[in-house]
């Protein structure tokens, strides 16, 4: 057996009272793709940050290619041959690809020789690994898939032999993700070692050779990918059996609850984000809006939720709603029976510095049940309401006095979902309901959405997770560049077809 490219021995790291990594040991063989999977907060990112020199471990050793190595900062990590591709790219937007690649790795005071050398080097790398990028394009002009390739090129240019990718497919279309995997395969063939951090089981099964599962700061298992299955991995991640697919009866659509006609949205900068779209949602059905992030879905939710002005017509239960002016706000929308689970619970859905009980009335704080008299709010009623919702939605810990920010992502989301669903709305807008939510909570939230549908409510679901759209929706509309590319029934379409629509390519069926 050869020497492992990376060996971590007994790594531990605590942040205050939270033990983020507990005695973690792992061996990654050279020329393999090793997956690390786990729920949010399981400690994956902390572990990689230790390997890349962002954090110092409280205990444990790092061995690279059989040598014990100290990595006090990222410079040492780069010198040890480690490259990292972050979830959020670290590129200078108004620099060219070439300039970004050499940034921080210039040969001397003069830029020209470095750039010339880098250009030749990039050409070579592009041929070797299918990493085709125009070296003179500005970062702001190229797509996210391309930007990610630049990040990989940056690491390779610095002679990285070990590449760490943190949730690399989060922002990619399925086709772009496939391309990325082909690149990773060719890197592997050239003997590079790759660590892939993800929470998507499908990716692990598709590309990795071995996989390590983390749960609550501990490494619960390391197995060969060929010897395991998605249900087994899910169980290892969560610690109990989970349903990966939503069980639901066929929809029985009723009257039109939401009708959108010729809706357009222009943002503050004068850019048209939504271009003349029309669709409808009926009672008792879930309309899923698929698409890569940034193609107008957020603006659609904001316009429907009342905090983005728009033009066109929106009818709710046959009655038009105001799209501009003072009657176009979240409060009026709620009074019309529209509840909204926003895409970003930390920026919109919750006040992170409010306690849970204060958040439970957020947006509904004018309702009579929360008032003691004309002037004062009824805190006791709000706390009681919070306790009730926490119990019904299994929010843990069930303590209304805790600040919203001290709950885990999944429990924060449950608080928001509880607040909006318990209002018994006619129409529920849901954006990214399970982003950053652990598998156990995903299962629960999906069940709640289906239950609401079965009560005859209309649901508009926006998600960038294609699996989620496919398993929850009764109808699917795909958005690209502010337009609806087409509508499909989930039973009659495939991830591949939707992927093409998401990339703006209409197939022969459209």
């Amino acid at each position, binding site marked *: 057996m050869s020497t492992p490219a990376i060996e971590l021995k007994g790594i531990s790291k605590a942040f205050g009272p939270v033990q983020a990594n507990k005695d973690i040991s792992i061996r990654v063989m050279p020329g393999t793709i090793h997956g690390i999977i786990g729920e949010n907060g399981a400690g994956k990112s902390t572990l990689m940050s230790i390997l890349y020199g962002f954090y110092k471990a409280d205990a444990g050793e790092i061995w690279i290619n059989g040598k014990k190595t100290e990595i006090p900062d990222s410079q040492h990590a780069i010198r040890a041959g480690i490259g990292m591709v972050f979830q959020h790219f670290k590129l200078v937007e108004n620099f060219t690809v070439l300039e970004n690649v050499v940034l921080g790795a210039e040969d001397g005071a003069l830029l020209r020789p470095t750039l010339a050398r880098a250009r030749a080097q990039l050409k070579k790398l592009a041929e070797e690994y299918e990493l085709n990028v125009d070296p003179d394009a500005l970062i702001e002009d190229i797509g996210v898939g391309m930007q990610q390739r630049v990040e990989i090129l940056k690491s390779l240019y610095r002679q990285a032999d070990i590449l760490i990718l943190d949730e690399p497919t989060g922002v990619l279309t399925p086709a772009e993700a496939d391309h990325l995997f082909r690149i990773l395969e060719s890197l592997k063939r050239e003997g590079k070692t790759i660590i892939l951090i993800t929470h998507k089981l499908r990716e692990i099964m598709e590309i990795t050779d071995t996989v390590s599962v983390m749960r609550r700061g501990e490494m619960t298992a390391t197995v060969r990918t060929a010897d395991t299955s998605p249900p087994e991995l899910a169980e290892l991640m969560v610690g109990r059996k989970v349903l990966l697919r939503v069980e639901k009866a066929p929809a029985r659509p009723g009257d039109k609850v939401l009708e959108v006609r010729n809706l357009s949205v222009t943002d503050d900068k004068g850019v048209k984000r939504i271009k003349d779209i029309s669709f409808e949602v009926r009672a008792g059905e879930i309309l899923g809006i698929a698409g890569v992030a940034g193609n107008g879905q957020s603006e659609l939710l904001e316009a429907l939720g009342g905090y983005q002005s728009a033009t066109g017509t929106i009818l709710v239960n046959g009655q038009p709603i105001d799209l501009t002016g003072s009657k176009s706000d979240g409060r009026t929308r709620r009074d019309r029976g529209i509840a909204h689970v926003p895409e970003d619970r930390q920026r919109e859905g919750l006040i992170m510095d409010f306690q849970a009980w204060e958040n439970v009335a*957020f947006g509904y704080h004018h309702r009579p049940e929360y008032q003691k008299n004309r002037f004062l709010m009824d805190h006791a009623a709000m706390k009681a309401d919070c306790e009730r919702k926490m119990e019904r939605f299994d929010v843990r810990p069930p303590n209304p006095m805790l600040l919203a920010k001290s709950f885990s992502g999944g429990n924060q989301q449950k608080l928001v979902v509880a607040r909006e669903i318990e209002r018994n709305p006619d129409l529920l807008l849901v954006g990214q309901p399970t982003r950053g939510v652990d598998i156990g909570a995903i299962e629960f939230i999906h069940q709640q959405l289906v239950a609401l549908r079965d009560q005859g409510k209309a649901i508009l679901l926006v998600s960038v997770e294609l699996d989620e759209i496919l398993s929850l929706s009764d109808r699917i509309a795909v958005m690209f560049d502010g337009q609806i590319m087409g509508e499909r029934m989930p039973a009659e379409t495939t991830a591949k077809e939707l992927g093409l629509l998401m990339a703006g390519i209409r197939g022969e069926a459209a």
Partner: protein
Amino acid sequence: MQKMPAWADVVLIPLISLLLAAILSGLVILAIGENPWEALKLMISGSVGSSYAWGYTLYYATNFIFTGLAVAIAFHSRMFNIGGEGQAMLGGLGVAYVCLFIPWPHWSLALIGATAASALFGAAWAALPAYLQARRGSHIVITTIMFNFIAAAFLNYLLVNVLKPMGAMDPATAKFPAPTHLPSLHDILGAFGIPFSKAAPANVALLVAILACVGVWLLVWRTRLGYEIRAFGHSESAAKYAGISPTRIIMLSMLISGGLAGMMAINNVMGEAERLVLNSTEGAGFIGIAVALMGRSHPLGVFLAAILFGILYQGGAELALWTNIPREMIVVIQALVILFTGALDNMVRMPLEKLFLAIRRGQSATTAGE
């Protein structure tokens, strides 16, 4: 999990900060060749050593409570109102008009009228910067600070050209008529048989200030408006999602803030000077910022911080009177207190949080070991 107990956050940190400021002040006093211990004794006896001293300390504290509350309520909606000085000056103008031109039968009615007028004038002075911030995005810090200068120039003009009685030499209004004179603490406490210095300027406005503390507490933590102000202050994007209008919250919180700053005038203009003079505010608007910072924008904290700054202000005046320590030295000491309690808060906080964590871990280790 909380990093440290609440008492450490509320009591221990300000106390340590204060101690550090005192030590540094002592060193500065030592450096100019004076005895810091004597200076400290003089400051304390001069500010809290007699009912006369208390009378001055509480008088200053009353000013600082109003301006401190003004800054605090604006902080809750994440507005930095530096215009307390100008708003308090305009409040003085409101008091002057009400006291000079309305024949009040009794001081209590005059107080109500003057309070309303001062709040109205102060709020009006905050309204334009607030509108510019809410609608045009002009930064509130810049506009409020510029409005301080406009207020000073405006009052200068009015006092010299309009309000000064014929033949008077100094730029001030005429003395307010007797029915508008407010009872001092001497009068109030005397009614209960408690002796209190007759010469000290503390007056019934202190009680209004305490009422204002309670009012602000109720407003911020018990009403819908307070809920919306805090929500907006924590997260504007979330407020929009919830249907809270940013314009409305910015306008209302700044109007309340300006009103509170204006109300300071019932203490210094109506209660003490009994006429409107040039620069009547004496920088109390700016001290309000420090008071709000130290009081963590909580009315109780503002109250305590205002008393502390009252002590500093009055004790400092005594120092300048009885020793060779120049008046500017007091400004240095105040600046050190502001620096340590406000700006350098984290310097004390971080090590203390670490200490508490270490203690806690030590405790859990021993319980686990048993």
